[in-house]
């Protein structure tokens, strides 16, 4: 049975040139083309903490460096830390001779048993927050550097502006500028070669003290040749890099990490800028506001049986076609055409809709991604059923209906093997080519798609062609 659901055996050729299974492909209703994750533009939609499922606006996320304020990860193993409460005896504020129980909180990892007490962090009196943030030790120096280089760049920009301005004015004298050393150039080379150094007036520079080099560097610790290495007290690379600015070398220096937040992505067609997929805003919802998956719009092709292929012997491969749309669909299988002609075929079908996609996108200039090269060479010859067939519309109640309710189609028994609700079975005759190890056949699925984006100017149904590749199975040599 498993082969029924082996979606990767049937792959559609996306408009970018990659073969992908129908579950990984989107169908842009506006361009009427297949799109996949490779050829859509991804966007960050909502940011949320995966632990507390709290939404975070992007401004806040930027301030908090994409980390949740309340949830922590274990610096040792990466598991989420949980807050533990315990009570300690402290002297009562009224009467120092008596002690009262006070609740304090610390963080503990339920996976590796690391606690904030292990590294000597004080327990907190409040359940959430209160943990002191680590500071970058070089903060001051880096801030002054940043200011310094900003003013240098600003200066450079002003100078450039000035030059452009003066250049325009002195166009009469451009000849002398060209052949004699211009005064500006002369000054530049004399003062400093550096593009980042100050040119001329130094008064603009801000406070910045360059660091100085030393002739001695810290050597190895004295005891390294005699000291026993306790492996558990030295951090691993992962532990170090999980806090890039500090990179603690000993486990005693580990510090609880704020949990990194995650995003929900929305996908947008590059050509018409319409959303192909947009999740709901709520982080705990797994539904979508917009989801233009190909399995809602493109007839789904599946293999019905696993077929034993023998080299050079014709065998019958049955495919089922399923109509996911609520409109009847005319379908035909055409011989597979190599890339180039395949595109023209698609173009022919799409010329009529070109206008609509342009009108929606206006002046947007599309940045084309490089075309993908995929091996599209079939390893078996296929005889496709001739003629058209009609796929009944999808009817959600049909499954509960016992009676056969679609006898009205006049099917050509040469084409249609069986028919059930919105599904139709067709037979292909596959003859593997000699010395091929794996049987792969291709065909072009031509179907009439009922356009759901209502525009008055054009007909509602459009004929689309989608190249399909079927991995039939391994070939046994006879």
């Amino acid at each position, binding site marked *: 049975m498993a082969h029924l659901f082996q979606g990767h055996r049937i792959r559609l050729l996306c408009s970018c040139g990659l073969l992908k299974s129908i579950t990984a492909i989107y169908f842009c209703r506006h361009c009427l083309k297949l799109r996949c994750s490779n050829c859509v533009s991804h966007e*960050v939609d909502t940011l949320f903490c995966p632990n507390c499922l709290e939404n975070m606006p992007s401004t806040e996320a930027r301030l908090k460096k994409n980390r949740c304020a309340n949830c922590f990860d274990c610096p040792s193993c990466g598991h989420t830390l949980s807050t533990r409460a315990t009570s300690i005896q402290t002297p009562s504020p009224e009467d120092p001779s008596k002690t009262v129980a006070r609740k304090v909180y610390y963080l503990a990892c339920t996976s590796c048993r690391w606690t904030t007490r292990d590294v000597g962090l004080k327990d907190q009196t409040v359940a959430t927050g209160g943990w002191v943030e680590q500071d970058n030790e070089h903060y001051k120096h*880096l801030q002054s550097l940043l200011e310094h280089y900003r003013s240098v760049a600003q200066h450079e920009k002003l100078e450039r502006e000035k030059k452009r301005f003066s250049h325009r004015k002195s166009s009469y004298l451009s000849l002398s500028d060209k052949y004699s050393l211009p005064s500006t150039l002369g000054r530049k080379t004399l003062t400093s070669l550096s593009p980042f150094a100050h040119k001329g007036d130094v008064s603009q520079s801000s406070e910045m003290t360059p660091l100085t080099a030393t002739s001695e560097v810290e050597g190895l610790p004295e005891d390294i040749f005699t000291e026993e290495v306790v492996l558990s007290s*030295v951090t691993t690379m992962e532990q170090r890099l999980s806090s890039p600015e500090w990179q603690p070398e000993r486990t005693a220096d580990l510090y609880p990490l704020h949990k990194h937040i995650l995003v929900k992505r929305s996908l947008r067609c590059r050509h018409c800028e319409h959303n192909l997929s947009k999740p709901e805003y709520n982080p705990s919802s797994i539904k979508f506001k917009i989801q233009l998956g190909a399995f809602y719009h493109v007839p789904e092709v599946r293999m019905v049986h696993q077929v034993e292929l023998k080299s050079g012997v014709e065998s019958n491969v049955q495919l089922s076609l399923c109509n996911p749309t609520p409109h009847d669909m005319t379908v035909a299988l055409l011989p597979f055409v190599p890339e180039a002609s395949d595109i023209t075929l698609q173009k022919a079908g799409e010329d009529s809709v070109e206008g609509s996609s342009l009108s929606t996108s206006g002046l947007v200039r599309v940045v084309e991604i490089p075309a993908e090269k995929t091996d599209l060479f079939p390893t078996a010859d296929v005889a496709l059923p001739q003629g058209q067939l009609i796929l009944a519309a999808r009817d959600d109640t049909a499954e509960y209906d016992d009676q056969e309710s679609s006898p009205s189609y006049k099917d050509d028994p040469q084409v249609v093997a069986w028919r059930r609700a919105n599904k139709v079975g067709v037979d292909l005759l596959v003859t593997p080519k000699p010395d091929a190890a794996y049987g792969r056949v291709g065909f072009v699925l031509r179907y009439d798609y009922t356009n759901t984006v209502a525009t008055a100017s054009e007909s509602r149904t459009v004929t689309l062609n989608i190249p399909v590749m079927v991995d039939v199975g391994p070939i046994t040599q006879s």
Partner: protein
Amino acid sequence: MPLYEGLGGIGLINEKNTTVVLDIGSAYTKAGFAGEYGPRVITRSEVKCRETGQTVPVFQYKDQDELRHHLVDFIHKLYFRCLLVNPKDRRVVVVENLLCPSLIRNVLSKVLFRHYEVLSVLFVPSHLVALMTLGISTGLVLDLGHQEATLMPIYEGVVVFHAWQALPLGGRVIESSLSDLLLDRAVAVTQDGSEHRLSTLMKDMPDKCLEDIKVRTCFVTTLERSSRLQSNKYDRSVEPPPPPTSVSYPLEGRHILTVPGTVRELAAESLFERDQDGLTLATMILDALLKCPLDTRPKLAENLVILGGTASMKGMKHRILAEVRAAAASEHYRHNLPIASFKLHHPPAKDNYVSWLGGAILGATEAVMLRSLPRDQYLVNDVVPDWCNLSFNTCEERDEKCA
């Protein structure tokens, strides 16, 4: 002069579309935002291969298309897992080694401009921007990476390019020598309690394991001990120094590997052994100085900067400085290169992200707007300006820039 320019400039810096700074290394990638004091993430430069589904290094590729796929997937991960911002219409600063192959550079810009539609890309030389973290403009920068060690002298903000040095000495060499030493000398206790030589249990060690052993147990020994170990190799009568203690290391959850003290000490020695041309890290520095103009040499020697992940190994900088001083006193260099003092800088960052930090400082200034390559310009002719491409690097163009 337009009066509004200043305001607009400040607006662009503080605008919510902060510039992204990427430093894609052969082992680890540093990514974050301009104007911040540390990268948001340092992650392995690894990606899931589209065909096999296995995790492979980004820069391990058969052809251009495969590299492009790797980079597309990898940058997708960086933006949507780590940085959590829209790549579209955002500036990017890429910190790159000047010796980076053009293919990688071209494919990377193709990916950024075409797949992610970034607003502009600015490639900055990693050695040069590393000096910006120190606030100096002259220095001899040695980048000890995973794959290779590259060196560029920089004088007054200009890379002295003809004096560049590069040797395939880096973290990978240490790991492979560690692997050889372990397979040669180490023993491991298996689950049933019996002791076996490591070479009988496995043919080669997994890379992650080697890196872990290197990071947690190995160190770079002192020059004095190293020379005693060397002389012991040829003359057994010389007493070797007492070895450091050995370490028990759990291997793949099945064996207990004993890492001998000698291995801990010797693993990094491969960086300091002279190769067939007599080259090593110390001679790289001295040879670069020799190629620099005479007057710049003392100043460069007093402004050494050593960075890169491998430089953060215990004792590494100390050893390099000692080696350089020893080599400078040797017969070959004493006459050609009479330099009294060598001094080393301490960048205000961990060694593995110094260049990134430089890129982040540069990225926060208006230089990004003036110097970067905008998308429109790239889309017209599909090329990135490159120092090694004569069509961008002729005298004419340089003169125009100066004028």
